[in-house]
C-alpha cells in the first residue's frame, strides 16, 4: 500500500489520520467483456459453392448499412454529431444514428471513459446483436488521452471491450471519423467469412 506521508510532527496539532484509499468492488466491475467466437450461421445452411457469393453479398449489405448507436460521452460527441449533419453527411454511406442498442451494430465510443461509466459501456456492448463493431473515437477512448495521469479515468476503452477501429485526434475532425468509418467498412469486406 502507499506509505502514508509522516506529517511534520508539530506537537500541538494531532497527527493527520493516515490516508488509506478503499476501492470497494471496483476491480471486478472493470473486468473485460469475454468476446464470443461466432461462426457465420448462414454458412451452415448454404452448400459450399454458394457460400462465397453469400459472403460477399451479406458483407456488402452490412458494410453499406452500418447503424451506429447515438452514444456520446464528451467533447468527441459534438464532433460525431457534426459528422452526421449536413456538412459531412454520413447518411450518404447508409449510416444513420439509432437510439437503441438492440437495433444498432456499431458502437462509436466518443469521449472519455471513466471507471464509473465502464460497467454501463459493457452492458450496452452486450445488448447489441451479434455482428457488432466498436470504433474508439478520440484520444480519450483510445488510451485515456490528456487525462492519463488521473486514476478515475479508464486508460482506453479496449481494456473492457474489443475495439475494431481507433480514430486519433482530440477531438478528431469530422473527416477523421468519416475515414474511421470507411476503414471499418473495408475491414468488414475483408473478414467477411468470420463474423456470424
Amino acid at each position, binding site marked *: 500500500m502507499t506509505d502514508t506521508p509522516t506529517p511534520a510532527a508539530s506537537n500541538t496539532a494531532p497527527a493527520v489520520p493516515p490516508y488509506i484509499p478503499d476501492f470497494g468492488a471496483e476491480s471486478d466491475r472493470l473486468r473485460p467483456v469475454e468476446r464470443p467466437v461466432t461462426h457465420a450461421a448462414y454458412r451452415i445452411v448454404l452448400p459450399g459453392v454458394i457460400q462465397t457469393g453469400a459472403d460477399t453479398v451479406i458483407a456488402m449489405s452490412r458494410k453499406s448499412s452500418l447503424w451506429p*448507436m*447515438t*452514444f*456520446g*460521452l*464528451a*467533447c468527441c*460527441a*459534438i*464532433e460525431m*454529431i*457534426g459528422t452526421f*449533419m*449536413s*456538412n459531412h453527411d454520413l447518411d450518404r454511406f447508409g449510416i444513420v444514428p439509432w*437510439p437503441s*442498442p438492440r437495433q444498432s451494430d456499431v458502437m462509436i465510443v466518443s*469521449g*472519455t471513459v*471513466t471507471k*464509473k*461509466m465502464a460497467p*454501463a459501456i459493457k452492458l*450496452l456492448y452486450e445488448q447489441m446483436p451479434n455482428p457488432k463493431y466498436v470504433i474508439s473515437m478520440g484520444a480519450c477512448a483510445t488510451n485515456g488521452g*490528456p*487525462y492519463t*495521469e*488521473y486514476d*478515475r*479515468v479508464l486508460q482506453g476503452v479496449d481494456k473492457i471491450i474489443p475495439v475494431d477501429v481507433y480514430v486519433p485526434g*482530440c*477531438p478528431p*475532425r469530422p473527416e477523421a471519423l468519416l475515414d474511421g468509418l470507411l476503414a471499418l467498412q473495408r475491414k468488414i469486406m475483408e473478414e467477411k467469412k468470420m463474423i456470424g
Partner: protein
Amino acid sequence: MSIWPEEHVATAHHGEGFDTVDMTINVGPQHPATHGVFRMVLTVDGEMVVDCEPYIGYLHRGLEKLSEANDYRQAMGYWDRTDYLAGLVCEQAYCMAVEKMGNIEVPERAEYIRVIMSELSRINSHFMFLGAFGADVGSFGTSFIYAWRERERIYDLLEEVAGDRMFPTYVRPGGVAMDLPENFEARCRWVLSSVYQGLEDLDGLLTGNEIFVERCSGLSPVSPETAIKWGLTGPMIRATGLPWDIRKAEPYSIYDRIKFEIPTGKQGDVLDRFIVRLAEMYQSAKIIEQCLDQIPGGLVLNPKLPRNLRIDNGECYVRVEGTKGEYGVYGLARGGNKAYRMKLRSPSFCNLSALREMVVGNYVADAIIILGSLDIVLGEVDK
C-alpha cells in the same frame, strides 16, 4: 414473468380500487435526450413523475487534481474541455484567474480579441442548445441541421483565427497567442450575417410553431427568489425576469465600453428560457459588431512574460458570464509554477442541483424537456 420491478417498489397505493405501484424509470447514462452521460432515476406513477434522483459523475475527469499537477500553461488544455461547446469562454476565465493571481497586465487589443472570440463561442453554444432542444421536443433533427449549418461556419472562422475548431488554447495568460488574420473583419461580418439568417430560420421553425409553444409555455415556472435560493444563474435567472448578467453587474475586461441590453423573460418557464437564449444571440452579435468597430492596434501578448511563469501567494475568485451561467474560477497559488488549488464553479452543476424541484409533478415527456431547457454540459458538471 414480472414487469413490475421488485427492487424499487417505492409506494403502493392500496385501497383506491386497484393497487398501483410506482415504477422507476432509469433515464440512463446513455440516452438521446440527456446530452451526454447524465443519469436520472424517475419514480413514475403512470405518466406523472413522483420523484427524480439525478446521478452525475460519469464524466469526472479530475480537472482540479490535474490543474495542481501541471503548470499554469499546461493546465489550459483541461479547462477549455470543461464547457466543450464554448471552449474559448473557459479559456478566457482561466487566463484571467492566472493574470489576477500573478497580476499580469493584458494589452488592449488582446482584450478585444478575447471578447470577440468568447461572444462567438457563446453564439456557437446557444446554437447547439437550439438544435438539441428542438430534437428533445421532437422535430427529429431538422432543428439540429439548421443549427449546425451556422455552427460549422463559426467553427471555420475560429479555425482560421486560432488554428483549431473546438479547443484552440488560443487565449494565453497575458494576452492572446497570435494576431487576427487580415481579412478577419470581412469574414466575421459575413459569418454574423449567416448567424442572423440561421436565427431567422430556427425562430420560424420552432418559436412560431403552435405545438412547440403549447408544450413549452407554463412548464415549471421559477420565481426570482427561488432562482437565487437554488443558485441558478445565466439564462435560467434572466428567464425569471431578474436582469442579472455578470458582464453588466460586475463588468470585467472591456464589457463596460460596449452597449448591449439584457433580454429577460416573464415567468421563468421553459419557453422563456428558450426565448432568452434566442434573444441573447442577437445581443452577442451586436457586441461583436461594436468590438469590430472599436478594436485598437498594438501588441497581442504581454512582452514581459517570463518563460517559466512562477506565482507566489496569489488568491482570486474570477467569475465570467459563461454560456450557461456564472463560470467561476477560484485559484490559490503558494509558490512554484504549479497552482496549489484551482476550483471551477460550474454553472451547469448548480443549475442541475435544482432539477428535482423542477421535474416533480410533471409528465415524463416534460421532465425530458425541462432537463433540455437547463442546457447542461456534462464536462462542466462532472469537472
